[in-house]
């Protein structure tokens, strides 16, 4: 009996280790992965307004081509803003605007085609916009809801995002935050209907478009002069 109980325990242990247990752990944040102890003590209040760093941020997308591979692209020209509330993240907001003229899938005729009325119709609809209306926390997951406007069509979408971490401000640089998100939209919801179905049933260009946001944004606060802080204690 003891032996069986032991085996049972062992079985359960193994089960826990190899199955869901590790998935329930919150994915380690950047601070947890790289922290040297002082990151834990990073008591900085990162509440601030952050502007997208256009050099390091990517507003990317991907479509499946002929059912075979993903063809990626991005919007090169954009601006965006995050109002981050460190005390209550659900009070944060984000908005950004992309210039469709800057769409880039590797250049050439495809980018020209994307700007035509078959796709984005840039002559009429110059901008892609997103403006959040709600930020929620569901368990470990953060969700943002907002209005996405493409080609003049506005839809409310909700998708998960992650705060990748923060880098404290220095005397020479603003604080910096990283945010990542990935979601999928159906381009036909926004009137981007171009494309046909191949004889084998695969779509020339998938309806589903994966959106991949890799956002680095810089704040407005710089640290108080270093001298004043310490002698007080």
């Amino acid at each position: 009996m003891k032996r069986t109980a032991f085996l049972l325990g062992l079985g359960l242990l193994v089960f826990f280790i190899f199955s869901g247990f590790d998935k329930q752990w919150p994915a380690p944040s950047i601070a947890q992965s790289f922290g040297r102890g002082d990151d834990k003590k990073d008591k900085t209040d990162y509440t601030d307004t952050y502007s997208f760093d256009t050099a390091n941020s990517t507003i990317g997308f991907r479509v499946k081509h002929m059912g075979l591979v993903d063809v990626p692209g991005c919007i090169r020209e954009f601006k965006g803003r995050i109002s981050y509330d460190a005390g209550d993240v659900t009070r944060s907001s984000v908005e950004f605007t992309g210039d469709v003229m800057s769409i880039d899938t590797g250049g050439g005729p495809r980018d020209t085609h994307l700007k035509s009325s078959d796709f984005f119709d840039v002559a009429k609809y110059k901008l892609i916009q997103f403006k959040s209306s709600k930020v929620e926390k569901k368990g470990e997951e953060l969700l943002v809801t907002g209005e996405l406007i493409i080609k003049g069509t506005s839809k409310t979408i909700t998708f998960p995002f992650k705060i990748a971490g923060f880098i404290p401000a220095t005397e020479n640089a603003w604080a910096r935050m990283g945010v990542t998100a990935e979601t999928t939209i159906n381009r036909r919801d926004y009137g981007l209907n171009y494309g046909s179905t191949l004889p084998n049933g695969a779509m020339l260009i998938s309806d589903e478009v994966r959106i991949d946001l890799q956002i680095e944004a810089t704040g407005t606060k710089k640290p108080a002069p270093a001298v004043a802080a310490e002698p007080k204690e």
Partner: protein
Amino acid sequence: MKRASFLLGIALFALFIFSNSGTEAVNLSFTEKFAPKGGDDKKKKDTTDYTGTYNFDKAHTFIGFKVKHMGLIEVPGFFRDFTGTVNYDAKDVTKSTVEFTAKATSADTGVAARDNHLKKPEFFDVEKYPEITFKSTKVEKKGKNWMLTGDFTLKGVTKSITFPFNVVGFLPPGERGSKMGITAETSINRRDYGVTYGGNLPSGVAAVSDNVTITLQIEANGGPKAAAAAGAGAPAAKP
């Protein structure tokens, strides 16, 4: 006692279901996912011999890379200018080969100043090393995964690397030939190739990660062409 063994049994069963089989499900290939098991579907009956030479379709092929910036997010880039060839052996995939060359100077990360920096000796040193090349030496099947081994040359340093790839599928022959799709992802340490630029932040995080994720989304054209219109679409009759 019986009860205990019963519970143990359940635990082991659950272990089996939630661990191994889950992983396998993720690795289903395109064909497994989309080709029905029944014999009725046309796709199932595609008996075309896709053996042949395929050239990378420049408009639909993506040779991309990503680095982690300041430990925060990923900054992607890709090579705009490249050529590549797949020699596909349908009967024995392990006899297939692939090679490609990317022009180092065509690296595009969306920011001109950064792209110019990448051309400097600190990074690719494009004047001395204009090309980045890969030439396969071995194709193997390990379990359900296909593995590709080959010589990867970056900045004049050649290393043998092995990584998994996936033959996504084929489009049946038209007059101009067939089309195949291949995807692969791997990562390399850029310092192995002498690309050593970049320091650490005060927190110890690298400004530019050593690890570089490489993403290949390859569409290649070639292989068998459709026989004159009459035979097009009909399964090739085996002699």
